């Protein structure tokens, strides 16, 4: 497979490229069983994580992935309050360019900032979440997890996204990739948290009964993004939990019907799910975390730094 310089979203990947990344992730995951979990593949390369938004697991997942490939890993601390405009991002990039990093993993609150960075550096840029737009490595690790669960072929399986769809780049990217791989997808969310540009072929439900009638194989719980809810989209957390959350009572039915549960983390216990979901035998949440490292190693293995700075000022 020909390498690419950047990974910015799912849309720009070909089916062959997606297949390449997902199938290579299997041998990467097998490495975790070895006594030496590290391979020398990226020895001498530098991976820099540049997070303009807080992150619990994505950042450390990338750092572990890069470390297991023997890259040197640095994180660049950004003063989240001072840096908001594109211009200062470019100043930062000029600095990073001078540091000669090979890979930049970036998360930013605004859409398309990773694209802007990618055009202005010779380093490979990986989008680790931009605004409400995309989170491609999350989508790839979710797809990888689903393939593991369904024995390699996810076609015809059904996945329902529940929660804050409007503010979720995870819902956007993962939903898109699931549909590309031949899955059926649907949504359950308060009307105020459903994006207006939803394709009409995606079923939208008002309550859990309707969702069960649709017979999902997987329920993908989204995090209620407290930090983005400047204006209230629903009356209270308690009310959200009782209407949309995966409560103890709803978990009984989910268990009876053998439905898998996914969540991108970090979870808000008592909001989108109840404590007992964490011990549910068909919860894929820990598997998603482990797979995240393998998939990110696979992405780093495939990307190749070089050219750009507006395609070398062509």
């Amino acid at each position, binding site marked *: 497979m*020909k390498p690419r310089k950047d990974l910015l979203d799912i849309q720009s990947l070909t089916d062959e490229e997606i297949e*390449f990344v997902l199938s290579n992730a299997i041998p990467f995951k097998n490495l975790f069983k070895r*006594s030496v979990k*590290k391979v020398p*593949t990226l020895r001498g390369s530098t991976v820099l994580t540049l997070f303009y938004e807080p992150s619990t697991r994505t950042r450390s997942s990338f750092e572990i992935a890069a470390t297991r490939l023997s890259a040197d890993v640095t994180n660049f601390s950004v003063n989240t309050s001072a840096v908001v405009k594109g211009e200062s991002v470019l100043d930062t990039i000029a600095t990073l360019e001078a540091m000669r990093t090979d890979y930049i993993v970036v998360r930013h609150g605004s859409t398309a900032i990773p694209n802007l960075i990618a055009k202005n550096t010779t380093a490979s840029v990986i989008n680790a979440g931009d605004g409400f737009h995309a989170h491609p490595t999350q989508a790839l690790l979710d797809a990888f997890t689903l393939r593991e669960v369904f024995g390699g072929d996810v076609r015809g399986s059904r996945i329902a996204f529940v929660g804050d769809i409007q503010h979720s780049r995870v819902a956007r990217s993962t939903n898109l990739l699931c549909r590309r791989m031949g899955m059926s997808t649907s949504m359950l969310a308060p009307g105020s948290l459903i994006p207006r540009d939803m394709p009409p072929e995606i079923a939208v439900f008002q309550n859990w009964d309707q969702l069960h009638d649709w017979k999902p194989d997987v329920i993908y719980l989204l995090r209620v993004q407290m930090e983005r809810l400047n204006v209230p989209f629903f009356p209270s957390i308690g009310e959200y939990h009782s209407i949309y959350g995966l409560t103890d009572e709803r978990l009984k039915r989910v268990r009876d019907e053998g439905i898998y549960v996914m969540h991108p983390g970090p979870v808000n216990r008592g909001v989108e799910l109840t404590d007992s979901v964490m011990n549910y035998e068909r919860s894929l949440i820990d598997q998603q975390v482990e797979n995240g490292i393998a998939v990110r190693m696979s992405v780093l293995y*495939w990307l190749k730094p070089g050219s750009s700075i507006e395609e070398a000022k062509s």
Partner: protein
Amino acid sequence: MAKASHDAVFMPDSAPILSKQDIAQRIERIAEAIRESCHGSPLALVGIHRRGVPLAERLFILLKSHYPELLLGRVDISLYRDDLKSLEIIPKLVGSDISFDLDGKHVILCDEVLHTGRTSRAAIDELLDYGRPKKVELAVLMDRGGRELPIYARYVGEEISVNPQQRVQVHFEEVDGEDAVYVQNGVRR
């Protein structure tokens, strides 16, 4: 890459220098040499992906009755290459398969052609990340010379002297649909 040179990689432009029978005989010779010199430690054959794997499998069949505990494995050296950064095409990973404990084993790495020694170096590095073998040796069907590293094959099917532009190509039925060895004149650019 131009069409002509692309074809040259896959289409042998001369008769094979070794036939199916020749190859079988060379592999039998390697097995014989292994039987003569390997006693004591448990023996493991590890094929280097891709054409080292059929060589290891064939040796396994020939040696199994002599070594009831004989082990078989595979290494995919893609993650250990020293030239990954310069490749135009990133190799699809097959992955290694060492499903046994390597500690204390006498390992014979198998590959179809020994040339610069860089592949063997990568394979040795990878093996050592799986454990601490007692001993590692190398078995190759063809040794064409041209070493760039201090690597030595203990078991060799056939030594061949070729000039640096020439390519020694081994075909195995499992991979290529036939058993044959070709020498090709340089793939020029």
